[in-house]
């Protein structure tokens, strides 16, 4: 949810609560005031009537539908104080029951007791309620519009540096060389934020470059020392007076060195692909590359009695660097030979949409979604480096192709979808 929507809703909710409570308070207050005023009016009427009686008017003239004066002969009655009550009576004009305020009082006027029964129509609570609600709803709507307008201005104006910075961060690429452009602002918090973003992006770029340089240097600078070590070991083997056991130690060291050098080469390859050093996107006859690799690996496959079959169209042009295509295919086929059973099979199918390499083999022992990670091996004990599929993934990523792995029915299947 957008920040704008969130804050607007929040303000609207807050004012809704305030307005509801305010409405209730107003309603009660108005009702109280109306009752008070009515009582006051009734009391005034009472006094006027008393004066009228004193001036000699007969009660018959004074009585009407709201005033009932009764002469009391009983000497036992005494003056009573005002007794107010609410009642419901029929309204003479509207001809329907209405809420009335009633004052009943016995009072002695000129040595004669009278009972005054005065009524006046009360402003109904319904009316008060409706009035208050109508006013508050209008007010609330007005406030709502105002909040939205004010919030819009706030976001457009005060928060604009924040949104500009946000946009810059979104388009930030650690591989770009230009420094990130952040908007000028006089808001302290945004100034701090921008300073922080500048520092972080700068550091990220620096780290990225250092790491990149390190990977590149480390992996090919180490080839020379490895070459030296291997050369010395070979000389040691040649020296002739080594025992069987010693020769095997030398051999072990030699193999470990080879592996080290291959890891270095694969890592360099990965970083080269990542740096886009294979960017010759002239169309390449992908079908031919697959065919060449199938021929190249057929002998190695046969050594494990693996039958390799390929269904290829004569020509399939794809926009990929031919060296990259070669690396991709050779890694896929190597992978299929390696994770296979002796006497198994490999099936390669290529068409306009996809390349599918499927092969027989045991179920993978690691979660399949991690297979494309570096140094993740399907079988822990295997002598592979665990970089083959990472390279495949990296290539498909740079090509914006998709790679899908599936294991069903004792069959591994890797599909590369050209999109």
């Amino acid at each position, binding site marked *: 949810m957008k920040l704008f929507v969130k804050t607007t809703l929040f303000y609207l909710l807050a004012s809704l609560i305030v307005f509801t409570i305010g409405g209730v308070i107003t309603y009660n207050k108005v009702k109280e005031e109306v009752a008070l005023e009515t009582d006051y009016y009734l009391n005034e009427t009472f006094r006027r009537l008393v004066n009228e009686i004193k001036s000699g008017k007969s009660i018959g003239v004074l009585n009407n539908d709201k005033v009932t004066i009764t002469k009391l002969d009983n000497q036992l009655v005494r003056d009573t104080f005002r007794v107010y009550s609410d009642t419901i009576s029929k309204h003479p004009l509207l001809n329907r029951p209405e809420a009335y305020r009633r004052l009943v009082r016995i009072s002695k006027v000129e040595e004669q007791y009278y009972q005054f029964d005065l009524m006046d129509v009360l402003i109904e609570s319904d009316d008060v309620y409706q009035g208050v609600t109508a006013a508050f709803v209008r007010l609330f709507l007005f406030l709502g519009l105002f909040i939205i307008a004010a919030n819009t201005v706030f976001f457009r104006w005060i928060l604009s540096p924040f949104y500009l910075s946000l946009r810059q961060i979104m388009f930030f690429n650690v591989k770009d060389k230009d420094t990130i452009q952040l908007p000028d602002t006089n808001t302290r918090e945004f100034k701090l934020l921008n300073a922080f973003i500048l520092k972080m992006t700068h550091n990220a770029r620096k780290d990225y470059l250092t790491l990149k340089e390190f990977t590149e240097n480390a992996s*090919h600078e180490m080839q020379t020392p490895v070459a*030296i070590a*291997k050369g010395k070991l*070979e000389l040691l083997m*040649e020296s002739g007076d080594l025992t069987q056991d010693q020769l095997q130690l030398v051999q072990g060291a*030699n193999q470990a060195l080879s592996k080290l*050098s291959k890891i270095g080469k694969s890592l360099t390859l990965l970083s080269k692909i990542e740096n886009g050093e294979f960017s010759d996107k002239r169309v390449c006859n992908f079908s031919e590359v697959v065919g060449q690799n199938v021929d190249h690996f057929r002998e190695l496959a046969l*050594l494990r009695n693996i039958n390799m079959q390929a269904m290829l169209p004569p020509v399939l042009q794809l926009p990929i660097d031919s060296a990259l295509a070669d690396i991709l295919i050779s890694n896929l086929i190597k992978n299929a030979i390696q994770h296979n059973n002796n006497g198994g099979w490999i099936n390669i199918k290529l068409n306009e949409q996809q390349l599918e390499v499927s092969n027989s083999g045991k179920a993978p022992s690691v979660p399949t979604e991690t297979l494309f990670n570096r140094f993740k091996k399907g079988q822990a004990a*295997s002598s592979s480096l665990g970089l083959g599929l990472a390279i495949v993934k990296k290539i498909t990523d740079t090509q914006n192709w998709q790679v899908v792995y599936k294991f069903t029915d004792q069959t591994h299947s890797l599909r590369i979808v050209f999109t």
Partner: protein
Amino acid sequence: MKILIIEDEPDLLESLCTYLGKGGLLCEKSSSMREALDKLSNFKYDIVLLDIMLPDGNGLDILDFIKQKEPETGVLIISAKNALDDKISGLELGADDYLTKPFHLSELNARLKAIYRRRKFSGQKEIEFEKIRINTETMETRVEEELVVLTLKEYELLLFFIANKKRVLTKQSIAEHLWGDNVDFLDSFDFVYQHIKNLRKKLTAAGTPDYIKTIYGMGYKFTSD
């Protein structure tokens, strides 16, 4: 065969010289571009072993120099870079072969001999070892005039053995010689064993003694002893 090794890493330079020297090659060393150009101007070499990453210049310039001054000299480039570009430009400029560090010395030896053979014996392309004679032109192997039919891999294996006769060859170096870098993913060297077994069978059947000695757990040695 006289070779010049141009390599800036003294340790590697030393190892290369010792190893090749044992095989009867005459080695001269040079560890910088200046020194190398100096030697190349004054002496004649059969093959130059050239590291293209030198402290005082690009080895490809030396290659250029050799091709202009002494075109019949063979050049084998060694480089720590696996860059395809270097490989291609090196071969385009006239290098005979390209090896990426690290390499097996036995592989280097075999490649040097192959270059030497291609360049020197332009008429006679025969390799002899005791009773075995190989014509590298027709790729025919004969034992005392009798033709031995070998598969391509067996033929390559035999050449590799003869180039490195009397030397211990590890299964790994044999495998890499036969199949290139792509064998690293295959767990065993049984394939090497299969080819060796077949080659041995064919050679002894043709009447040679068993030249291929197995060094247990380690590899093989091709020797008439």
